[in-house]
């Protein structure tokens, strides 16, 4: 990833590294989720018809990133939903998120399935005026 894009990728031999940037940690996590799901479906082709909510407790901000991404990936797979838009709030160690998308359909252009977020190259850190969140996702 170069420049100041909100979402992007970095190299990993076998899989993909995803990056999210934002003014807050929560915004960076939202953009990391966009990067993750954009590997599977082109966001502009996914309709915002249904919403799912995810909630979790995590005091460790770094571990919260794979926890957030895995919660979304798990629900997306279990409910057969393609997701494209995300929102996330935090109160202390309590995280509440929402994601929007539509049921999988055969004519939805898809590419590589992302199965889980890992702790590899995991980092959540201040960058410039905001934050950057990154980890490798397993495809």
């Amino acid at each position, binding site marked *: 990833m170069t420049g100041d894009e909100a979402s992007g990728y970095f190299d990993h*031999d076998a899989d993909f590294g995803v990056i999210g940037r934002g003014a807050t940690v929560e915004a960076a996590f939202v953009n990391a989720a966009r990067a993750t799901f954009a590997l599977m479906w082109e966001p502009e082709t996914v309709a915002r018809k249904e919403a799912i909510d995810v909630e979790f407790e995590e005091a460790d901000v770094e571990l919260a990133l794979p926890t957030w991404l895995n919660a979304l990936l*798990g629900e997306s797979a279990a409910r*057969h939903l393609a997701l494209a838009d995300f929102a996330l709030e935090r109160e202390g160690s309590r995280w509440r998120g929402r994601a929007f998308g539509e049921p999988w359909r055969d004519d939805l252009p898809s*590419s*590589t*399935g992302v199965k889980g977020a890992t*702790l590899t190259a995991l980092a959540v850190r201040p960058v410039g005026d905001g934050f950057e969140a990154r980890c490798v996702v397993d495809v």
Partner: protein
Amino acid sequence: MDLARLRSLDEWTWALPRHGGEERNDVVLYGSRELLASMDDKVLEQIGNVARLPGLVGAAMTMPDAHWGYGFPIGGVAAFDPDAGGIVSAGGVGFDISCGIRCLRTDRTLDDIAARLPKLADGLYRDIPAGVGEGGSLRLTVPELDDVLAGGAQWAVASGYGDASDLEYVEELGRAENAVPANVSPLAKKRQLGEMGTLGSGNHYLEVQWVERIDDAEAARAFGLFEGQILVSIHCGSRGLGHQIGTEFLLSLAKGASRLGIDLPDRELACAPIRSPEGEQYLGAMNAGINCALANRQILAHLTRSTFAHHLPGSRLETLFDVSHNTCKAERHLVGGKPRLLYVHRKGATRAFGPGHPALPERYREVGQPVIIGGSMGTGSWILAGTPESEARAWSSASHGAGRAMSRAQALKRWQGKELVRELAGDGILIRTRSMRGAAEEAPGAYKDVDRVAEATERAGLARRVARLRPKICIKG
């Protein structure tokens, strides 16, 4: 990889010397100078971290196809003694628990089926569910899925998918013992209810291949192989269920490591003592994941047979072998000349029992276990046989694939999926895929030379080459 950091033990075996008071077990890397030089330095960092884990017996090792993984390098092998504080690591098994290859041998030759290849490719593409969000025709309830997780391929055969004769040629006769379905979370099960009998995406595939060359006539006879013969290889694993188990235990074990008195050199190596409630809980879930993968490949083998029966009536497809390459297995190995129970992690590495091993089916016992090194969709694959010396060198382990030479992101910059599929068709290789982007990520040029990996595997004494395969049809997710 900077070879200056390594000491050559022989042309195919390398060691990472310790510096100062560094406290860790030995690190041994197998492969040629050329293969090691092409590896990322992260491989060395990761296997060095594995060598620091508690209860490790002997060296932490990498196979000739190693590349940067998660915690463990892919191609990593490490054995732990449960009675010496040894651990089981979720990162050492990987996310796609029991990912592996089912290889079927047919009674047909390339000449027999050449004219029908396009229709066979279309039929397999239609009948084998593959790709993102592609569910199978099988829809299970949670109690039914629990039966799968307890029964593995034995459940699949009892449910009408395949033949009991298949089971003799599947590791553990198709069923991992000590699986505890109750240790698998409701979300993991929910992800799997509609995914049994599906291939998935990424590097998973179903390939129709032909035997281009036999290198070891005796082993080939035992394996039922001959030149020109058509084989089918199915590469996939435990799908969403395995991944969910992996991610959930990875996070919980990483958070609990300090409480268990484990100083993790990398959080991705999240682990627990084998003899601890946490370790036993993970092992129960992991064995359930293994059974999920074994059942999945059994169902896919059955679907493949149905497609062959339609397009090539009367054809016979027998299981050559089913090998997993993401596992932790309790095995007896010789340590200092005495048998000892060890928990052998093979992350992107294949078990490769040598001749005479009691776990092998009678038919293969004199020549050793079939080892399958899956290559890229444009080049080829290898079948090898386990060797006697692999026991002492690598706890009877060998390479599992060609190994990536470049990242997926780099591959996407270099290749276009449609152009690639057209080029391969020009070479007589039919690709059927739901994702042209996925095809570009899996471009043959993104992988190392499988012939060099197979050669290094043999020269390092891990397994010996038996037959080289060439692809004709590849179904990708």
